[in-house]
């Protein structure tokens, strides 16, 4: 890849920042497809679905995270992904992911049984997020 200027990138969850620093490129799973952002991108607000978020640090070094649903904002050449959960690809905890999957599925069942009107889209994304993690960790 050609040399790109670095710009500040953060992947933030309610439980703390998963990544904070300068990068060449950030790729996030937008609702309508992946969004790749370089330095000096136009201001953007987007919705994210569960999937893989990749931070290209330069020199071919890439950090990958399994991320839950959330939002993405580019402002003054700063890219911020706000997601409800982010796990580095190398640190996936299969037991935790399985628990997330079970919780989300139990809630989805309630929705389907008409007992709950919880946000269906979000639940589906959480199931997807858990499945992603299990797939990457090879435990599914």
């Amino acid at each position: 890849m050609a040399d790109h200027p670095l710009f500040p990138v953060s992947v933030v969850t309610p439980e703390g920042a998963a990544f904070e620093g300068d990068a060449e490129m950030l790729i996030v799973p937008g609702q309508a497809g992946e969004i790749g952002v370089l330095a000096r991108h136009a201001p953007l607000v987007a919705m994210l679905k569960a999937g893989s978020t990749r931070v290209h640090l330069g020199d071919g070094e890439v950090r990958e995270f399994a991320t839950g649903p959330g939002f993405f904002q580019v402002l003054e050449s700063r890219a911020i992904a706000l997601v409800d959960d982010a796990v580095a690809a190398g640190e996936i905890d299969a037991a935790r992911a399985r628990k997330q999957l079970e919780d989300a599925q139990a809630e989805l069942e309630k929705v389907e049984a008409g007992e709950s009107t919880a946000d269906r889209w979000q639940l589906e994304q959480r199931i997807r997020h858990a499945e992603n993690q299990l797939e990457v960790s090879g435990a599914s």
Partner: protein
Amino acid sequence: MASLQDLRRRIASVRNTRKITKALELVAGARLRRAQNRIEEMRPYADRMQELMVGTARAASSFRNLALLQQRDEVKRVALVVVTGDRGLAGPFNGQVLRRGFELEREARKEGQEVVWLAVGRKGASTLRFRRYELEGQWAGFADKPGYHDAQAVGHKAAELYESGEVDRVVLVYNRFESALVQRVTTTELLPIRQDVLASDESAEEKAGPSADFIYEPEPEEILQRLLPVYLETEIYRALLESAAAFLASQMTAMRNASKNAGELIDSLTLSLNRARQAEITQEILEVVAGADALTG
């Protein structure tokens, strides 16, 4: 007066109690630091989320028809969400939240409103059940260390009750962590979401600059519809974290006082023990002297 044997037993028992309260104090102190860190860690997320919401609301043409924002003209039922701990031994921590809850209940009933309860934490749930209140929802087992998904579960239930029209107002009662010494019972209106959280103050507007050149994907209205539940979850998550830190701080204080009281009790018991022992020795000497006098006399 209690016998020497009894006093010794009591001193030993109070010593053991002091060991336990001291250990609990230390454990609570160590956990408190971690709980405070978690509050710090969520702050950037909450701040950015708020900025994003303000910006998106400004770009949206109409957001007043979103369900979670709609003020109802007539409030018929109120949901009270009380956040307590899973365990006691924390001074007034659990009691004061419940007391505020019952106050709010009385006020609501006076205005002819019905009240439903949602309990977070084992203590609140058991007290409410003991008083034969029906619980619309209860969550427990994470009071020391809440995760974001716990807040999501509570948030979903609250939003569901509100959207379905079962309740017209949702109020959250919890202990706010102000410092290791001060925990304040706080009442927050969860739903409907106040519209002024969407209105920016002027300084924020200057910082964000002109908002018109943002690209929104999808439309701002649709993003806002997803942002509102996330805002709700973030507010609840913040309350859970504050409550967890307040619980530990309160426990630490309670245990420190208990250790101090145990120390004082040990001192006073030791004093009685010494007095009793000396009285016994004096008595024995008197008896010996009296006996000797009787022989020589």
